[in-house]
Structure formats: structure tokens, C-alpha cells
């Protein structure tokens, strides 16, 4: 059964590119456009991995990340932050919130597929 991946990003173009690229790589994809619905979807779907934007309406990626880590159902789910915030301090904040990995925008789709696969393998 293909791994289920949830992507949460408010940029429609980016969301669709990520969905298509990962679908082509054989993953089962789900997408949401803001932090609040992303968190709700994660709780319902219990995906194998979550791709999370940082700056989003309603709830930031960091807030979602904290909430996911506090929830027993999603506390161990790998989370990859997908964001334009590339400063070392931002990376630190992301990892401290519970992110597993980090992909900086603009992003390389091939690298994203590789990171997703590696994170899933580590979590297995």
C-alpha cells in the first residue's frame, strides 16, 4: 500500500506541484490550504508523513507542528517543513517544534521526493 502524505500549504501552485510530483513517485496524496484544516486532516487521516508550510493563515506551521507532536495519534509522524524561511534560527525553531526535516523554497522537486522517501524509511 502506498504511503499516505498530507501536504499543507496556502500556495495553490506549490501545493499542486508537490501533489503531482509525489503522486508520480507513487505516494497517496492529500492536500489542505491552511494550518487549522491541515491539523484537523492530520488527525483524521493519520498520514505517514506531513509536509508543512511555515507561514499560513489561521495557524502557522510551527503551531501545527507543536499541536501534532502533542497529539498521541500524530506524535511520531515525520514532518517536513517546506518554507522560504532559511535562517539558522528558523531551522532551529522548526526542529525544536518537532520537525523531522526541512526543505527550503524555492525547492527542487527531485530533492523533495528523495527527502520524503528517506524520512519514511527512517520512520518505518
Amino acid at each position, binding site marked *: 500500500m502506498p504511503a499516505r502524505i498530507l501536504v499543507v500549504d496556502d500556495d495553490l501552485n506549490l501545493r*499542486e*506541484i508537490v501533489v*503531482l510530483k509525489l503522486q508520480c513517485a507513487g505516494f497517496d496524496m492529500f492536500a489542505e490550504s491552511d494550518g487549522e484544516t491541515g491539523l484537523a486532516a492530520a488527525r483524521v487521516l493519520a498520514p505517514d508523513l506531513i509536509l508543512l508550510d511555515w507561514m499560513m493563515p489561521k495557524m502557522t506551521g510551527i503551531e501545527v507542528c507543536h499541536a501534532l507532536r502533542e497529539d498521541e495519534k500524530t506524535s511520531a509522524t515525520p514532518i517536513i517543513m517546506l518554507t522560504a524561511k532559511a535562517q539558522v534560527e528558523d531551522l532551529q525553531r522548526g526542529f525544536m517544534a518537532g520537525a523531522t526535516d526541512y526543505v527550503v523554497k524555492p525547492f*527542487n522537486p527531485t530533492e523533495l521526493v528523495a527527502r520524503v522517501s528517506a524520512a519514511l524509511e527512517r520512520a518505518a
Partner: protein
Amino acid sequence: MYLVGLAVCALVAPIAASVVVKLVRERTASRSLARATRLRPDAIKLVADAVTTGGLPAIGTRDGRVLDRLVVEIVPLLRGADKTALVLVLEERGTVAAARKRTYAASALERAHAAEMLGALGIRRALPELARLLHDRSEEVRIVAARALGKLGGARAVPFLLASLEEPRPVPVSIVSMALLHSGPAGIEELRAGLGSGSSTARATAAELLGQFGAIAASDDLIVALADSDERTRAAAAVALGRIGSPRAVEPLVRLLGEIVTIDERRCAISALGAIGSPAPAELLAAMLDSNEAEIPRRAAQALGRMGDAGRRELRARSLEVGPAGAHAREALGSDSDTQATRRLTTA
């Protein structure tokens, strides 16, 4: 009666006209949105190489224009081979060539759109067209062209961007500075050459950017710029030397402080000395705690605070004083030292 009718018509006609214009605009926007929604999947599929370019709407048609715009929106989200592949698709479709032609369009909006597209796609061979648009009669076009040149990156755009600061149709300094920042440190040699420009705005901007890039190789040029005829250039050179942190700059900065210069230059030079952190000017800066010039005592205290032991020794000595100098010294020493100094003052 006739006159009343005429007056009513005169009142109603503009309102009716504006309603019609609004309706037409709304309809056009709604059609354009519907077209974008319909074509977005094709644009996205291009990233995954899941659609053949032959099946796409032809360039120049309404659908073709919307599709190209969607692809141009997508390109800046990507890096690597996928980005290159998308740009190649637009090259093959003739979109890039058409955009280069449209930089000559009669409409300013067309020229601006073309410049924006060439910048977003990173078409470096479009540099001559974008450089020409830096002197366009429309300010909006000049601004878009400057931003586009910044997105191209590399050194070649730097001389054009610096030259665009000159009259009679200058591009705003903030726009050029951001474009130069986006161009990246590859243009350091060109920025060093910019310190010799005939335009004082260009010299000051070049100095500022050299500091932003931490260009150690430009230290000597910036030291020379401390004696520039233009005060903004001197101040920018001082700030840049502080950012670079070159110890060689200490003496020239101290010399600058000893000359009759503007308050802004003095503030910049003091902060630069603090950023460099050499203890040599500690005594001089301690004396500046008594200055009546706006911001100077605070800056001097902050600079001393960044100077290590020598600076902190001066601050501790002055922190016992009652008055502004003592307050600035205590503030720079931090809250712990502040408390200790206050306690000592109270005891005294």
C-alpha cells in the same frame, strides 16, 4: 422641461457609464479566472513532464497567454532541473522571444509585463533589453526592469543598476539596492568599481552593498571612500567597514571622527568602531559619552559595550556618574551591571 431632462441625463450618464465599465471589468476578470482555473492543471503537469508541449494552446491566443503567465508564476517556486525544464518549454513555445520583443511595445504595461517575465524566468541574455528599460520613460517600467535585473543575478547587471541611479530618470535607490542585493556577491568587483562612479548616489549605494556582502577584498577601497566628497558615501563606507570588521579601518574611522563631519557620519563611524571591536579608540569613545549631539553618547556607549574588556572598563568607570553619561554607560553594561552600579552609587 427640456433643460430638466438634459440635467438628469448629465447626472445619470456618467453613473451608467461607470456601472458598464465595472460590469465589463468584472466579466473580464471572471473569464480570466475561469481560464486560469481550466489551464492550471496543464501548467502544473509541465513540471512533471506529464503533458506534451504540442498539445498546449498556441502562443498569442488568450489561452496561450494565460498558460504562459501561469508557468511564469510557477518557475520562481522551483530550483534545479525542473525549473530549467519549464524555462525551456517557454523558450520552445517562443514565449521568451515574444517577451524580448514586447520590451519595445508602445504600452508601458506591456513593457513592464515583459520585463517581469524575463526576470522571473532568469533569461540572462535579455540583459540588454532590461538594461535599456532602466531608462524607460515610465517609472513603473524602470522599477520592474531593475527588479528583473536583480533576479537575473550575477555581475553583469551591476554597472547598469548603478548607472540607473543617475538623472534624468533615476530608479529609486531602495529598488536598486534590493536588486543589487538579489544579484548576490558575484558583482563585488563591479561594486568596487562603482565606488569610483561620477554619481554620489551610486558611490553610496556601492559602499552600502559592499558592506552587506561583507566584502573583505573591498576594505581598502572603502577606507579611501571615507574621504569621499559626498557625506552619504562617507557614512555608507563607515557602516560597511563596521560590517566587514576590518581592523585596518580603525585609524581612518578615528580620523574621520576628528574631522568636521555630519552627525550621521559620526554616528556611523562610532557604530563601526564598536562593530570592529578593537580596543584602541576606547578612550576617545568614552569622551563622547559627554557629547551634546543627538544619539552620539548612546552610540558611543553601545560601541564601548562591544569592545570587550577595554570598553567595559571605560563604561564601568563612567557608570558611577550621575547624569546622562552615567545612564548611557549603565544601559550599555546591561541590567546586571546596572543594578550593581546603582547599588554602588546608593552606597556612595
